[in-house]
């Protein structure tokens, strides 16, 4: 396919010229204030949700960067910012050297749109119920004029459906005729249709049984190897993240608290939150054990705690943690970065950690 060959050529020239995706100081605040009259009556000010609060990371071409963290910590918001579906309150997203914010007209945006695609967390909401599956999957191909012969379009749609383990003949059906996991696969097929270089996958396999999940993850890996795709991956399943990622970023209440190579983070987590998160992994080998949930109250992004956002739940918090926001510092365990005063001060010795986190 000429389209693919072209894309690969473009990528090869780009290779070595730095990351494909660069996120710098990204923030997104949502205004969720009640109506003005209510505010006046209740004598309240505006209410802001600080969903994302100063996030920076790079994704090298052909690599997978995963975001993990509690429900509501801002992962999907980062994903939507990165593909340009939200505009940032602060900071910027740079794709292949171009700032998304500079692409103001449709004409400037269209070629970039083709190159970055998103698989949404909610596959139901993202499929038009009145369209046949073939038209849903063909939409990006037609919109970007990738193939003009209708027979070729349908052939490509058939290929895509089979890639995600559906049948080419499923194209004639409507989304409601499929199960949850089958619909998720339709949205994966659609995302792959425009031969994107960068795929943002928000919980792409969470509705799938483990055997279909294995097929999809293997497929994603094959595509990455053959076409050099770059992924931003979001999943709460840490085993899946371990398997698929080159880099991992751990988010807590709108901020990245630790990021670096996946193997380093899983083997030697530094930030107290990362340690707790990994301790809470459910384990088939431990069935019957009651998992230790990350202790303490889940804080709200409407009134984030001062200083380090994690301090109210952190066993190592001190006065500095309560007042001063920790800056990124190199991780003692490898090439990554950590935002934690205790790590920076070298307070988290093995003994200290053992006695606080592993208490039975």
């Amino acid at each position, binding site marked *: 396919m000429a389209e693919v060959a072209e894309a690969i050529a473009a990528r090869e020239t780009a290779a070595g010229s730095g990351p494909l995706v660069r996120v710098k100081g990204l923030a997104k605040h*949502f205004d969720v204030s009640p109506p003005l009259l209510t505010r006046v009556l209740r004598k309240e000010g505006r209410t802001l949700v600080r969903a994302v609060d100063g996030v920076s990371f790079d994704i090298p071409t052909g690599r997978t960067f995963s975001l993990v963290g509690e429900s509501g910590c801002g992962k999907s918001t980062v994903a939507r910012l990165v593909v340009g579906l939200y505009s940032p309150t602060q900071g910027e997203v740079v794709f292949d050297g171009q700032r998304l914010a500079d692409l103001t007209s449709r004409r400037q945006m269209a070629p970039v749109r083709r190159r970055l695609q998103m698989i949404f967390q*909610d596959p139901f909401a993202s499929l038009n119920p009145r369209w046949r599956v073939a038209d849903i999957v063909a939409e990006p191909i037609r919109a970007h004029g990738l193939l003009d012969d209708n027979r070729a379009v349908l052939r490509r749609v058939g290929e895509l459906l089979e890639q995600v383990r559906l049948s080419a003949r499923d194209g004639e059906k409507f989304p409601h005729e499929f199960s949850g996991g089958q619909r998720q696969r339709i949205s994966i097929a659609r995302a792959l249709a425009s031969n994107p270089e960068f795929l943002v996958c928000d919980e792409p396999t969470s*509705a799938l049984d483990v055997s279909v999940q*294995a*097929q999809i993850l293997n497929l994603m*890996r094959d595509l990455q190897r053959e076409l050099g795709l770059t992924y931003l991956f979001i999943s*709460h399943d840490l085993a899946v993240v371990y398997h698929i990622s080159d880099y991992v970023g751990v988010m807590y209440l709108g901020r990245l608290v630790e990021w670096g190579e996946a193997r380093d983070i899983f083997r030697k987590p530094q930030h107290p939150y990362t340690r707790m998160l990994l301790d809470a992994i459910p384990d088939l080998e431990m069935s019957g054990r009651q*998992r230790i949930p990350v202790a303490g109250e889940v804080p709200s992004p409407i009134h984030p705690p001062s200083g380090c956002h994690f301090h109210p739940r952190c066993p190592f918090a001190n006065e500095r943690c309560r007042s001063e926001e920790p800056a990124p510092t190199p991780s003692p365990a490898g090439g990554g970065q950590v935002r934690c005063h205790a790590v920076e001060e070298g307070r988290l010795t093995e003994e200290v950690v053992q006695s606080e986190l592993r208490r039975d």
Partner: protein
Amino acid sequence: MSPSDTPIQDRAPAAQAAGQAERSAAGKPALLEVEKMRVEFPTRRGTLVAVDDVSFHINEGEVLGVVGESGAGKSMTGSAIIGLLEPPGRIAGGEVRLGGRRIDNLPYEQIRRIRGREIGMVFQDPLTSLNPLYTVGHQLIETIQTHTDLSESQARKRAIELLAEVGIPAPDRRIDQYPHQFSGGMRQRVVIALALCVNPRLVIADEPTTALDVSIQAQIIKLLHKLCREHGAAVMLITHDMGVIAETADRVAVMYSGRIVEVGPVREVIRNAKHPYTHGLMGSIPMVGHDLDRLTQIEGSMPRLTEIPPGCPFNPRCPKVFERCRHERPELIPVEETQVACWLYDENEGATANGGRSGSHG
């Protein structure tokens, strides 16, 4: 190392006490009984059978996990039990009994009332259960008031409590927001709160924890256990997450192509899977610390409903297939504590059967 090689500690005594033997010994019928249920979809292309002769029961205080291939009919089974199949889907055979009373043939008004008071349903798609035009609080309060005698302000208080129980931070402020202002996992938890707000006797939870991180998952699991212990509720928990199954379920049913192919106590099914499909499923689970280039997958895909092969539906993908599998349909056969629909376990299969039981799988 496959999960079936690893010893699993026995389940907590509380869970075991609620087990099947004690209950049936007391002569009490299971809270939910499903017998030979069949769900059909008449379509232009002929009649599709989405659920084919499925039988199972759930006791009071018990959690039945339901796992299986995507498209196997898990959600359909759940919707059929509570009379919420979307037309043209219909129950074409069998019976469903709740507390000994048949509920699959009731007039609409009656089943609706039972659904509201006695059954809590968590749908797989949280958005379909939430109305985007109303605040989360409005929807919770309305549901609570429909089914209880609480006043509006009491109902609001209860709604805030429920949001806190499912781990929504600042629930007193969040309650007045709209569903789209919640994250995916927060919406899922609102749906759980809606399903549990009237302390139902039967909870059908379809993928209730898929969008949730591990620690919120643990919290929801605790909530379900509490409902079982304190209110004797029966829970049908449909999920792909084997970790959640291992921690929550007392028994597990494995579905493939509209049928139950294996059902038994959770530790048996996880540690000592018998059906070749269950085996493949367990082998596909990724694990932290296992560095694999490719995950093990079951080759091929589940047959379309129009093309279910004769005999055992798994036979085209089965590594242990033999002649009989291609012609004769296996029914559930008791093997140790489990029941398995696989000819490998038929007494008359002699040598082959032993091959299957000795478990050269993995």
